């Protein structure tokens, strides 16, 4: 695959979490506002780029049988770094995201990319893959976060949009709203892909 293909595939063809249906937990849990969604997306992007880099560098050294354990240790190290940086410089955001920051370790997208891409491709290409998937994930979370925040609280980045007469549709920032929002977005995406005649429909 060329660099251009690798850089673009995370934005539509393999767009997480819709196309890959991996990493659903953070997509549902932290998207009650766009700020949280974006913060989580950027944290995952950081971990993805560097985990892909390290795993690609070590791909010829790690024995095949214990590779999953090795991958998890590498990913966990990066997550500890993210956790500490967030606590030091973005304290309010890290309080909002709570246990979902350490849970990046078990985010299936990261392990999935390590297994499917980084463990069999050169370093720079793997980093490009991490960047592409990470940006796709950040954009998806920002979209879901925007929809839920605008409908559920009537604000966007904390700025009131509709004035004081607006009665917020509170259901959207609660748990059921997250599931419904994600399901309907996935359905719309499938409908669009079907219309364009693409063969990458998620079932």
């Amino acid at each position: 695959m060329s660099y251009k293909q690798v850089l673009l595939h995370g934005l539509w063809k393999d767009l997480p979490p819709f196309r890959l249906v991996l990493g659903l937990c953070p997509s549902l849990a932290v998207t009650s506002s766009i700020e949280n969604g974006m913060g989580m997306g950027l944290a995952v992007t950081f971990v993805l780029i560097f985990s892909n880099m390290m795993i690609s560098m070590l791909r010829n050294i790690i024995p095949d049988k214990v590779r999953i354990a090795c991958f998890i240790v590498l990913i966990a190290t990066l997550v500890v770094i993210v956790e500490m940086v967030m606590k030091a410089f973005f304290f309010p955001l890290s309080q909002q995201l709570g246990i979902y920051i350490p849970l990046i370790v078990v985010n299936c997208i990261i392990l999935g990319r390590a297994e499917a891409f980084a463990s069999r491709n050169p370093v720079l290409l793997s980093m490009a893959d991490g960047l592409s998937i990470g940006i796709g994930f950040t954009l998806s979370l920002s979209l879901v976060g925007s929809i839920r925040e605008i409908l559920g609280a009537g604000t966007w980045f904390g700025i009131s949009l509709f004035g004081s007469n607006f009665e917020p549709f509170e259901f959207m920032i609660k748990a059921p709203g997250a599931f419904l929002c994600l399901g309907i977005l996935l359905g719309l995406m499938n409908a669009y892909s079907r219309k364009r005649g693409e063969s990458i429909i998620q079932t």
Partner: protein
Amino acid sequence: MDLLLLAIGAIFVNNILLAQYLGNCPFCGVSKKLSTSVGMGLAVVFVATLASIFTWLAFHYILKPYNMEFIRTLAFILIIAALVQFVEIFLKKQSKTLFNALGIYLPLITTNCAVMGITLLNIKYEFNFIEVVVFSAASASGFTLAIILFAGLRERLFISPVPKAMQGTAIALVTAGIMSMAFLGFTGMVK
């Protein structure tokens, strides 16, 4: 009485799947058939309870005395991964029937956020040992309850006329949303 309230709260009010959004990947992945979801649910109860006990002990008796709380994430995932491997070997040797029932789900559990999430919540809520055991078993039972109910619904969905674009995961997520709405009705049952 407090322990009973804790258990009911963990199963219904703060259901780990439908209110805390943990463990959604296996929720969507293995809930297509009732039998597989029962197996997955039981494996999660088993591993989550054991993992909670070990991570709690490790946190309070190893990490805390040496001021190494910052390494919590790394330590917990290692304990869970090692535990899953150990349980797999032990079951294979000791109990063939249990291994046949749970075996294929065990490797998936290492990256199940429900297990890791429960161990982290135990630390966050500062539980004592008895509370840890009750809370983790109850939370995992909540996971099992939700995944079994959901598998029942999905088997029906499979034979019903769903619009083409919504087939598969899309309609599953919407169904989960409606189920989550039903579980929201339990709010207020426990403080």
